[in-house]
């Protein structure tokens, strides 16, 4: 799976960077900085929690492109 951010929805609440620190950190204004979009299987649960917790519904999990 990989994470996708809808930047038109994101308001920089910053919850995702707390719940999915493996992939994201927050900038000074709270907007996420993506370090890697690919979500490791071991943190999928954290990723789903981050998606569910986004107050702006801006975070999604999408299937990775088949190679």
């Amino acid at each position, binding site marked *: 799976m990989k994470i*996708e951010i*809808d*930047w*038109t*929805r*994101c*308001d*920089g609440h910053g919850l995702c960077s707390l719940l999915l620190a493996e992939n994201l950190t927050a*900038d000074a*204004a709270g*907007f996420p*900085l*993506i370090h890697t979009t690919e979500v490791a299987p071991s943190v999928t649960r954290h990723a789903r929690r981050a998606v569910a917790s986004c107050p702006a519904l*801006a975070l999604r999990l999408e299937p990775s492109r088949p190679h």
Partner: protein
Amino acid sequence: MTPALPDTVAPVAFGSARLLAGVSGGVSNELVRHRSVHGPPRPRDLATLVSEAAAVRLLGRGGAGFPVATKLVATPPGERTEVVVNGSESEPLSRKDRTLMVLTPHLVLDGAVTVARALGTRRVTVAVHDRESAVSLRNAVADRQRVEDEPEQIRVRHQPARFVSGEIRAVLEGLEGRPAVPPGRRALPSQRGLRGAPTFASNAETFAQLALLVSLGVARYAEVGAPEEPGTTLLTLAGDVAHGGVVEVPTGLPLTALTGAGAGPLLVGGYHGRWLDAPGDLVLSRPSLRERGLPLNAGVVARLPAGTCCLAEVVAVSTWLADQSAGQCGPCLFGVAAVARGVVDLLHGRAAPQVAHRLAGLAGRGACAHPDGTAAFVGTALTVLADEVDLHQRRGACGRPYLGVLPVRDGSSR
């Protein structure tokens, strides 16, 4: 010297005039004249059109430079399929699409009709930002229906809009009656485009090139130009260049042939483009420029004259870019504005330590190419103009006036 504004001069072909055949004097081709220059419409089935586009490695002429054959293959054919001609030329320096749509509208429409017939649809829409193109295209459509009884219902939509509204997904939003800004979800128009239907959308020049391709055939089309991107391309040249305005040139020319003698910093790819010290050994074709990290985007090449304060020119454009953010995405809205303020600080000789950090914070963080394009424009400008920035830091100014060579009015909404 006075800055050359591209819309004051007639377009010129360096070498063979193809797109501009019959119109390089600035007189437009009406239908009868168009047919005598380019011949009748030549239908192609989809497989043939795809193989011809692939044979000449035709790339989209809007910004992304995507292979046309790949896009055609990815668009499911059928009566519901939509063909959208993007003539929404929103780059302030660019005039090439308007030049085509005003001077040779039938070539653009021939290309659109060829694609529509190959895809088995009659649904064709042309979206433009400016009134002149809309009038020219509407007259052309009426002539075709009256004289040739053309079965396609070509809609011409005039939607004045801002810089980021020229991107195809923003154009589609506008055509559906919503604000013409890029949507947040990434969906390919070929799969889910206008009104949810599969949509083949490309830039106005791309369609004109397709019309030329079927009219000339692969061999003659590829007689000129570089092997990696045969044929000609339209460019808009501005500032301290040998000939300012819209030119049609065979690909593969050395960039110096277009810029002429002169020492000012060079901008390749318009306001989402990149700055260079000098043209060096660069060769004009999308693949070869991209290999050197220089997307040609909509084909704008500009050089600043020696007499202007280059940093002030960059300030004017960055401030305009900040104003052009659709304001949808936080990192772009705040980031581009912060970058623009930083460049203003540098102009006045104040330190702006936050700029590098702010530029890095724009990368990949938006629904469209605006933050990345802005970062490319400002980032490369500050590198190329390092000496000038330093001069401003030490003396507070460089002593040269601001000439306004790079226009920042929205040329589209006149």
